[in-house]
């Protein structure tokens, strides 16, 4: 097993592409986008499925090296420009070192 970082970002669906483009540019080898049903934060409740889709959130998951992770987080300004609601970082281990 090999040590890697797990970045988890909740962001508006309309702005997800800005986040994944950033991840691509910072050198992440991949990412996964999960749907979100509902959420609460400073803006109050956001429930998926409003007609214009502006309340839809997604969760972007990216497993990556410590290096890339710190590059991503250092681009804090740009990342927050995409207005992610939450960005968390966790340690994890992966099976295939060459994949990440």
């Amino acid at each position, binding site marked *: 097993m090999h040590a890697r970082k797990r970045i988890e970002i909740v962001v508006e669906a*309309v702005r997800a592409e800005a986040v994944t483009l950033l991840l691509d540019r910072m050198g992440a080898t991949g990412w996964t986008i999960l749907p979100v049903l509902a959420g609460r934060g400073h803006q*109050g409740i956001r429930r998926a499925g409003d007609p214009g889709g*502006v*309340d839809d959130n997604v969760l972007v998951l990216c497993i990556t090296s410590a290096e890339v992770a710190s590059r991503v987080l250092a681009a804090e300004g740009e990342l927050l420009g995409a207005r992610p609601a939450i960005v968390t970082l966790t340690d994890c281990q992966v099976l295939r070192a060459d994949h990440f």
Partner: protein
Amino acid sequence: MSFFEILPPSVLFFALGFAAAALRSDLSVPDALAKTLSLYLMMAIGLKGGIAIAQPGASAGLVPALMVGIALSALMPLPAYGLLRAATPLDKATAAAVSAHYGSVSVVTFAAAVGQLNATNTPYEGFMPAVLAAMETPAILTALLIARRGGAATSGGAKEMAREVFLNGSVVLLLGAFLIGWLGGAGAERQLAPFITALFPGALCLFLLEMGITAARRLRDRGRGLDARLIGFAILMPLIGGAVGLAGGLLVGLSTGGVGLMAVLGASASYIAVPAAMRLALPSADAGIYVTLSLAITFPFNVLAGIPLWLWAARLATQ
């Protein structure tokens, strides 16, 4: 006028959905169905319009009507913005975003009005769906100009803006279906009538049921603490827009049905196309405000009071 004409089934389904959600019933409609019904309405409205203007002479008056529609959409954000800044506590970016919604139009409100006209056998100009499509996006441009002048940060260059305006999903589907209906003419009608005509009233009922649920839920989740002045705006503005639309329709000499629809377009506020565009182009504006006003206050107001009012006013004004 019978009870059925004043409160047709589709409006009653809206009220049913609204009441159910307000009382916290677990009645709900899958998101995919809501999305499907809105695609269906746009496709059906577009096709019907195109088929209608394929008939000889049916496009007479199209150009002036289009011009009035575009002017309405492009200009109404100005008084809306003025009103909001003068009488409500909204910041510049949010006021600009809200004004875009009220300049633009709502396909479902238009569909509900068309349903009313059909139920009472009132004819209207076949090209009105093209006017609807043309009115979707000019307001976005005006609002962004207002926001920039006000110093709000807009994101996206001219290219993104052009894509938003011309390639917005609703615009593409409405205009595309209109064109296809126009090319297909009577042949298309023969084939597609059961789909676009016979199903229309039922689909509208189901969609308004879901809109009622959505509006009431939104009011519950986000309506608390909504400023009374904002609510006032969301009721006054459609009255102003409707009156200007009525005048515009009369100006270019539309029929009773056409004048009614032009007034309804002026009164209606977008809650599908414009919110998404604003989220991208004016991210600092508060989506909680603009979606709530247009979806949870103006839309119900138009369905319950606005449409009957404008159709009645159009009848009066064209007699």
